[in-house]
């Protein structure tokens, strides 16, 4: 159980995330069909596969690199609304790790907080709008608390993953106010927001990479 994430940890994390989104692709698309236009899973899988190929060609000299490559891939190739937002999300993780040989819990908390600010700023999304922010925000709160409490890396990541999962599930009861789901209204109720679910998968992959 690592107290810091090395470049290879981070690579495992990102690859694990790609795997889990690939497995959930159809489920995520189905969620987007209920609340949007039904392309989310396909878009995500396409972008992440491309990111995996791009990472293979680049040496992870710092812990920022896998995130930077993934972020750039999303920004360069992904259409839709979530693509560029995920691009900027990964970019914020890449920035925090840009010159570092390892990621600490504090750095993860910082990246999450920056990413939240970025997504909220670009998407004009607040907590409760039924977007990925509804998973990001609780994860950020949990990470900051863990840092304040002096928790260990894995413990902190676990709390973030759990908070994101709960936040994502909670979107089932929210009316959409940003993105396409805002046109769908009540008919999206009962299924969670695919972007939020994906954020939860991201932190679950982090826990798995740190504990494997």
């Amino acid at each position, binding site marked *: 159980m690592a107290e810091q994430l090395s470049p290879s940890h981070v690579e495992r994390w990102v690859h694990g995330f790609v795997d889990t989104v690939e497995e959930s692709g159809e489920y995520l698309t189905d969620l987007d069909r209920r609340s949007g236009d039904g392309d989310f899973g396909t878009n995500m899988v396409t972008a992440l596969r491309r990111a995996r190929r791009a990472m293979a060609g680049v040496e992870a000299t710092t812990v920022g690199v896998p995130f930077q490559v993934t972020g750039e891939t999303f920004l*360069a190739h992904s*259409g839709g609304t979530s693509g*560029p937002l995920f*691009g900027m999300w990964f970019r914020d993780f890449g920035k925090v790790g840009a010159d570092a040989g390892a990621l600490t819990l504090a750095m993860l908390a910082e990246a999450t907080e920056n990413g939240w600010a970025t997504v909220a700023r*670009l998407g004009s999304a607040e907590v409760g709008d039924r977007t990925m922010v509804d998973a990001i925000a609780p994860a950020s709160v949990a990470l900051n608390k863990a840092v304040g409490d002096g928790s260990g890396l894995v413990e902190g990541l676990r709390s973030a993953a759990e908070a994101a999962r709960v936040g994502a599930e909670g979107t089932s009861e929210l009316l959409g106010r940003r993105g396409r789901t805002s046109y769908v209204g009540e008919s999206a109720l009962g299924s969670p927001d695919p972007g939020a679910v994906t954020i939860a998968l991201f932190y679950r992959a982090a826990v798995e990479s740190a504990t494997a």
Partner: protein
Amino acid sequence: MYGSPNTVAGPRSVPVRRQFINEPGDIVSEALEGFAAAWPHHVRLNDEPAYVARARPAADKVAVVSGGGSGHEPLHVGFVGTGMLDAAVPGAVFASPTAVQIRDASMAADTGRGVVHVVKNYTGDVLNFRIAGELLADEGVRSDIVLVDDDLATDTGDSGGPGRRGTAAVVAVEKVCGAAAERGADLEALTALGRRVAAHSRTLSVALAAGAHPGQSSPSFELPGDEIEFGVGIHGERARERRAFGPTGELVPQMVSPLVKALGLERGERVIAIVNGLGATHDLELYGVFGEVRRFLGGAGIDIARTLVGSYVTSLDMAGCSVTLVRADEEVLDLWDAPAATPALTW
């Protein structure tokens, strides 16, 4: 197959729509390649990421860059050249270009004096251009956005919503900003100018028949013969409202009158009038529409100082047209008249 009785959908079956394409997914990249080859003295095509830039980049001026989904040609790539755009960034059909495309096009166009992004108001375009602005800032390149939101049909007054869509007024913004940039205006002045033109522009568009997405064999919606879609955008979608079809002399006042009201145009004021074909509407019809626009504005005492009639901002092969009015002062007219040399607009 069309015409075989057992698969026919009933009386509303329509003839098959076909396009000149190879693979639907390749239409944009193949068209860009052809476009760049057709206008080598005006433009060059960057491949990865895809953008169109001037063949001879300008030196020492603010760059004017625009972009958006494809399917609106000649917009935007047709307006790259002297006096208009320095670069245009095409997305897939009706889909935003990516932030990296925009960033790279902007960096290629930047001469050190910054970049104005002319952006039609659509969620995806706005998001990707805003992100591109942040990426550019990290690279030390200044940029700012001029949002074009002229479509009166989407003016709901709802401040929390996405706001009015951007349509044909973007041509005026690109022309005027392009000319001012050529004359040396700085980033702040250009942004202010572009926003002023956009704020004083309104458009209404009607459709007589839907277009079809490349590779799709039926139009995206059907209209009965006695109705039109009133207030369409440029993405093949229907309007919120249907109205009765009628002679041009009856339809055009329904378009122009709300524009005059929305802009608060008064007798003696001057406008630039743009009559724009949405793709499949013939020049004969567009000039007929313009005739009615003249008649209406003449009656209202409003002076058409400049005119543009043609298919400049299309919605694939939709049959329809839009009318745009742009309130025009001396400065705007002077910039409108300034020389431009691009594939789609030269004077």
